[in-house]
């Protein structure tokens, strides 16, 4: 099981998913109606490291963070 947390304005509690790679996470999130529209504009971190590759292999307990568009300052 991996944990998926949604940051900032995305109103979604932490999800626990079965996933071997980040691609598996993508497929599952695309099927959640309230989450899917966010995915186009969200960046992703695995265990607090920004990532850019869907083939990343996940292990149980990994934390995936979904980061929507930012505006600091």
């Amino acid at each position, binding site marked *: 099981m991996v944990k998926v947390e949604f*940051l900032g304005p995305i109103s979604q509690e932490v999800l626990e998913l079965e996933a071997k790679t980040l691609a598996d996470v993508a497929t599952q999130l695309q099927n959640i109606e309230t989450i899917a529209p966010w995915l186009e504009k969200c960046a*992703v971190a695995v265990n607090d490291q920004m990532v850019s590759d869907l083939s990343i292999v996940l292990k149980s307990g990994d934390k995936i963070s979904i980061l929507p568009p930012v505006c600091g*300052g």
Partner: protein
Amino acid sequence: MELYRGSLDVEAIFSKWLNEEKNSNYGAYIPFVGTIRAEDEIEALSFDIYEPILEQWFQGWVKRAEELGAKVKMAHAIGDVPVHTSSYISAVFSPKRRVALELIDEFVEDFKANAPIWKYDVKDGKRIYAEDRSTPMSGSGLLA
């Protein structure tokens, strides 16, 4: 990196940083002070921060500045910040002015684009995500 609940004490932070580098022999100190403007009938802006990734982002700039013989500092507010008060201060110290002037520009712009901070308008006590003013971070869309 310093995070504070609510508005920043601008004078205190400016002086603290000035004194921290008093004897570092830097020739240029350029702070950028961001203040909440009264516009669109907002009472305040409000901020969420994801600290682990902000800290990493900031450490990347610490390294980058070090390579140029310079130093960066940053403070940001968490939660509500009323209009005409400050939510954000960043600063560059450097031996020479050119490095400092270029670095503060790049540092502030990259902050705007890639620091994991989310902004909300506060109107009638309600928090509304400032979607129109927000920028997808680099690498966005990976899961779409």
